[in-house]
């Protein structure tokens, strides 16, 4: 474990998202199961961090705990120094799931504005509209603002979901396999867009993925999780320079990182054992 909080660090270096000894148990009574055990995680402000691991390793649960959607049995989560549900209420957390969760009766612009409208009732309508419109522009959907979800492709719907999260102007984007339902080519285009969005907005991003390529290509840091019970096995710092693009895949260290991450995940998988 490489990311234990350094108590001697100055206050300004406090991580934006922090999990300390977080354990999560899910299920009722006899079916109660330890999904995460003693997870420590510190995400510095402005970082792009990925959580990767096999199915059932609890990576999504960890993200939900960071978002305040799941209550840890023990340990604590802080986002910007606040408990996560409090941070979410103050619009500090932008959530993106595998399902874009758009409202089918609203167009892209109204969908992008929807959450901010709920969270921030004091915001004037015109200002909300402008902000949502600017975020749609940022995700590359300027021309689709008046289209309803049924008229958009899967990738475009996910872009609207990202715009909706960005309209909140959160400190961190928590993304749970956002491209999991997309085809390979769309996925790559979305990864590239996400990098550009990250570079332009400088939002902190925590991404849950099961794609090794995606994790290395996007992140500054990858946390590999193992199952049974879910825990962070190790953390890889990705030394590839930003801005990244096509050439990043050909970088000699890309293949090396891929190899190391693969070995790590295999190790975590083997230790899982029979259920």
């Amino acid at each position, binding site marked *: 474990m490489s990311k234990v909080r350094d108590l001697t660090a100055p206050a300004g270096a406090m991580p934006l998202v922090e999990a300390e000894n977080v354990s999560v148990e899910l299920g009722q009574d006899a079916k109660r199961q330890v999904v995460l055990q003693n997870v420590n995680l510190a995400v510095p402000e402005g970082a792009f961090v990925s959580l990767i691991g096999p199915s059932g390793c609890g990576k999504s649960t960890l993200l939900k705990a960071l*978002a*305040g*959607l799941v209550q840890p049995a023990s340990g604590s989560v802080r986002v910007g120094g606040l408990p996560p*549900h409090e941070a*979410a*209420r103050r*619009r500090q*957390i932008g*959530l993106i*799931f595998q*399902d874009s*969760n758009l*409202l*089918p*009766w609203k167009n892209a612009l109204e969908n992008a504005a929807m*959450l901010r409208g*709920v*969270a921030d009732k004091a915001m004037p309508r015109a200002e909300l509209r402008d902000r949502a419109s600017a975020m749609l522009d940022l995700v590359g959907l300027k021309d689709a603002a008046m289209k*309803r979800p*049924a*008229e958009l492709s899967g990738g475009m719907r996910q872009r609207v979901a990202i715009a909706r999260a960005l309209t*909140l102007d959160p400190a961190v984007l928590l993304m749970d396999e956002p491209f999991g339902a997309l085809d390979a080519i769309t996925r790559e285009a979305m990864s590239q867009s996400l990098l550009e969005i990250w570079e332009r907005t400088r939002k902190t991003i925590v991404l849950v993925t099961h794609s090794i390529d995606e994790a290395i290509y996007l992140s500054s840091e990858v946390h590999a999780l193992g199952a049974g019970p879910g825990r962070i096995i190790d953390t890889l710092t990705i030394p590839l320079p930003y801005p990244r693009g096509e050439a990043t895949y050909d970088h000699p260290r890309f293949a090396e990182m891929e190899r190391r991450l693969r070995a790590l995940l295999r190790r975590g998988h083997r230790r899982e054992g029979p259920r």
Partner: protein
Amino acid sequence: MSAAARYGVGHTAEPRGWTAAESWLPTLALAVLVVALWEATIRLFNVSSYIVPAPSAIVVAMIREAWPLAAAAVVTAKEILVGFLAAAVVGIALALIVARFRLFGRALYPLIVLFQNVPKVALAPIFILWFGYDLAPKVGLIVVIAFFPVTLSILTGIEAVEPSLIALMRSVGAGPNEILTKIQMPHALPNLMAGLKIAATFSVIGAIVGEFAGASAGLGYIIQFASTQLDTALVFAALIVVSVVGVGFYYLVEYLERLVVPWAPKFNRP
């Protein structure tokens, strides 16, 4: 006609290239054939008209009694419309109560299901006893027959909302009222429209049964009165008018569906 339609390899049974007239033509031809066979059989075997009237006799009865039938149709249509609207209001209100107040809803819902299994046609005499012979007992009967598909369809729609969408709304501080009005209710609108279509056909049944149990006007009253007079041709004529009213009513609701939920998945399939 497209090539795919011409060779029968289109992905729908009814090729899209067909005009409305062309797609109705086979049905119309079949109907004409059935009516012709009917007429021929009656004439050939000399069947008494009080047992089964010939189509021509039905037409004669319809023309002879055109005014009484029209007046009765107005009475019945009014019962259907008022009853349907009342059933919709009751059905929607019950669904919202069950969805919004979890605990009360859990107590109420099994009772609604239990009530659904009461043979409600049997309630007609009681409603006559309580509400008299006019509009009220028919409306009451239609409500108890037709509210359930409305309630059930809304609840189905509300339950189909993605939990992660609810989580998203909650995370930014939305309360249960806001989630119900902004997410769950609009989400359930396509389901509601489907439920209303079922309720529309149930409403016709409710009105006729209500009139059977006791009425002094309406198409159900004419059917019953004519059958005691052995005027079977008039019974059939009234039946045809009921069917036309019912079908018209159904398509009215279907037309409303297109206006209310043009974004529904069924209208947006590729």
